[in-house]
């Protein structure tokens, strides 16, 4: 029926009971499902299926209560933001200055953090659930208009959400006097056009205002105070909002019964890279460990081809890397933060012992250098500089000075002593994440993070690549930096051990 699903025929999705071919990469398993409960239905994106499976029941439950009571429920359930920072949604809603109206909801569907694959599934597979979440949020927090910002490259998600919106308008779930109440709301579908940094919430607002998607000044720290059109604005991630219908249907107690006290509920995790069964899983929040996720039979099933784990990125491309020592950490923001990284956007990228570490670091650094918006000088200039040095090293032209140079350039973006995703085994002390930075947003530090992690953990691999000369031959000057000169140099990382 559409590209995203029709082409995935050859590999299948399994739950304990059933196999589905139309949700590529998703494995339901035998676990509680809050946001993926309809994924076994091929037509889960239609309003008919949605209504047949408790659709908009949560909205009705919410509308039966006064709006502040719904807000209190969301606070009590500690629904954590699923976009990366993990800030509780109910608290975020409460940061709007009193008495200032109108207030807006902006839905962050600009999923593009490397390794992250969940919001697109939620939009393609259950768009009405997201819409219902938007309605509940706007009702609870008194938000007058909702803008649903979907990443530009997600054509199918845009189509599914557009169709769902059209159907929901027609059925009276959106628009004037929803379900006969005095709750009225427009949800406007807005789509981006390709810029990772727009996932940063202030950049998202700039983009939604028709500007270049450059993060705004901080303070104010939260758009809740001054956001879209200068008004109080809540920016919530797709998955965060997708939790709300279930919460409203089943209540706070049922929600907090899953997961841990500080991280209740479930969360979507994508495990990719060198594992037997790369996939997306809805896991129990807080208690599931990285070892479960990477090696558990109901999850990624362990390393492919009998290889051993070399390193993994625990929370999206921006996160400092972990190694075997951190496998038993739970998927819980505080625990992972204390260990010097983050759970972030729910993306684990696994590298086995065949991985060319300098090339892997280059891939991520090149991504962030390319995606810099260009606003802050350290990110704009420093990110590209790091990329150039790495390119030289990967190409075999690095000099002995370049490794210290990488650290020094990185320190202009992240000054001081910073975090090591490491362990006592290496004689290093982890510094809690996040670290100091000279830039407005995290894109700049993210260009340095992989360099820092890789150099800290695998310095010998870099040293082995260096020239035995201390100068740079004239002929080694790389091509002028363009968007395209980067990924070619990411040497074949699949199954090749560097010599």
């Amino acid at each position, binding site marked *: 029926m*559409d*590209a995203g699903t029709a*082409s995935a025929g*050859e*590999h299948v999705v399994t739950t304990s009971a059933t196999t589905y071919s139309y949700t*590529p*990469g998703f494995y339901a398993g035998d676990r509680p499902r809050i946001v993926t409960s309809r994924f076994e239905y091929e037509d889960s994106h239609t309003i008919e299926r949605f209504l047949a499976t408790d659709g908009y029941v949560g909205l009705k439950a919410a509308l039966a209560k006064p*709006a*502040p*009571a719904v807000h209190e429920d969301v606070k009590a359930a500690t629904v954590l933001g699923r976009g990366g920072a993990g800030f509780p949604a109910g608290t975020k809603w409460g940061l709007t200055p009193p*008495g200032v*109206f*109108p207030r807006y909801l902006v839905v962050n569907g600009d*999923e593009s953090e490397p390794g*992250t*694959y969940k919001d697109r599934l939620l939009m393609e597979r259950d768009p009405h659930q997201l819409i219902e979440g938007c309605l509940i949020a706007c009702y609870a927090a*008194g938000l007058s*208009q909702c803008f649903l910002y979907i990443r*530009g490259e*997600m*054509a199918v998600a845009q189509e599914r959400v557009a169709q769902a919106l*059209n159907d929901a*308008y027609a059925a009276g779930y959106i*628009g*004037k006097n929803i379900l006969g109440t005095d*709750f*009225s*709301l*427009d949800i*406007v*579908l*807005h*789509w981006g*056009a390709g810029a990772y940094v727009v996932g940063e919430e202030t950049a998202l607002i700039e983009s939604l*205002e*028709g*500007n*270049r998607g450059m993060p705004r000044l901080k303070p104010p720290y939260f758009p809740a105070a001054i956001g879209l059109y200068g*008004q109080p604005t809540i920016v919530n991630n797709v998955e965060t909002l997708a939790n709300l219908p279930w919460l409203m249907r089943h209540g706070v107690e049922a929600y907090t019964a899953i997961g841990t006290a500080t991280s209740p509920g479930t969360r979507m995790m994508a495990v*990719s*890279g*060198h594992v037997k069964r790369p*996939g*997306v899983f809805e896991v129990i929040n807080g208690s599931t460990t990285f070892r479960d996720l990477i090696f558990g039979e109901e999850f990624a099933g362990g390393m492919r081809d009998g290889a051993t784990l070399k390193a993994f990125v625990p929370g999206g491309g921006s996160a400092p890397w972990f190694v075997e020592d951190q496998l038993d950490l739970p998927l819980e923001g505080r625990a992972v933060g204390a260990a010097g990284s983050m759970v972030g956007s729910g*993306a684990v990228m696994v*590298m086995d012992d065949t*991985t060319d570490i300098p*090339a*892997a670091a280059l*891939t*991520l650094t090149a*991504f962030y250098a390319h995606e810099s*918006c260009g606003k802050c000088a350290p990110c704009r200039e420093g990110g590209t500089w790091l990329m150039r040095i790495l390119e030289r090293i990967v190409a075999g032209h690095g000099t002995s000075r370049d490794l210290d140079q990488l650290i020094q350039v990185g320190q202009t973006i992240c000054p001081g002593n910073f975090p090591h995703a490491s362990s006592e085994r290496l004689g290093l002390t982890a510094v809690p994440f996040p670290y100091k930075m000279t830039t407005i947003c995290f894109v700049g530090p993210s260009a340095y993070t992989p360099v820092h992690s890789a150099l800290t953990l695998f310095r010998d691999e870099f040293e082995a690549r260096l020239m035995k000369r201390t100068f740079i031959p004239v002929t080694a000057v790389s091509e002028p930096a363009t*968007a*395209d000169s980067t*990924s*070619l140099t*990411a040497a*074949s*990382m699949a199954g090749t051990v560097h010599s």
Partner: protein
Amino acid sequence: MARLSEDNVRIALEIIGRYPRAKSATIPLLHLAQQQDGFVTNEAMAHIGELVGTTSAEVLGTATFYEMFKFEPVGKYLVNICGTMSCALLGAEALMHHAEHTLGIKAGSTTPDGLFTLEHAECQAACTEAPTLQVNYRYRFRVTNETFDQLIDDLRNGRLGDEIPAHGTVAKIRQRIPADRGVGAVAPEDVTEPPAWMPAPQAQGSTS
């Protein structure tokens, strides 16, 4: 090429009407222009500036920030091969080399017949299905050399016309807000009171 056609101006005005500030429609209108002409022309940018009330330079500034907008003709099929971490770990670079060989062009260029443009892409949010690519933003997962060649063959022979529109069209379904259901844009200058469903402020603070 051209300014927006009469039909597209109608769509543009409908889109503009959804936002409290017309400038917010800039990116959707740039998509509309790209859908019309296959790329974004200078005339269209100037026209969008007129429609949303900004200078052409501001439209250009916004448009060039985003990667999806092209300012010169590209192939009917834009093939984006992801090269970010998860795909790189699973052979993206080899796939790109194969694609370059199959199409006979380097990444960043267009085949002489104007059918294909090949580009490096950043993370496509399908990391578990690496290596991935998009053709005009329609996914292909776990791409092998063989499935890539089959895809190109299918596209060349028009076998995927139903699924994959020509470059410029992203979503084939547009949002339509029915006139009798729509609330309309809520602009800061029009509203200073809490919305109708919110209790009065004093009650708001008294939740126990």
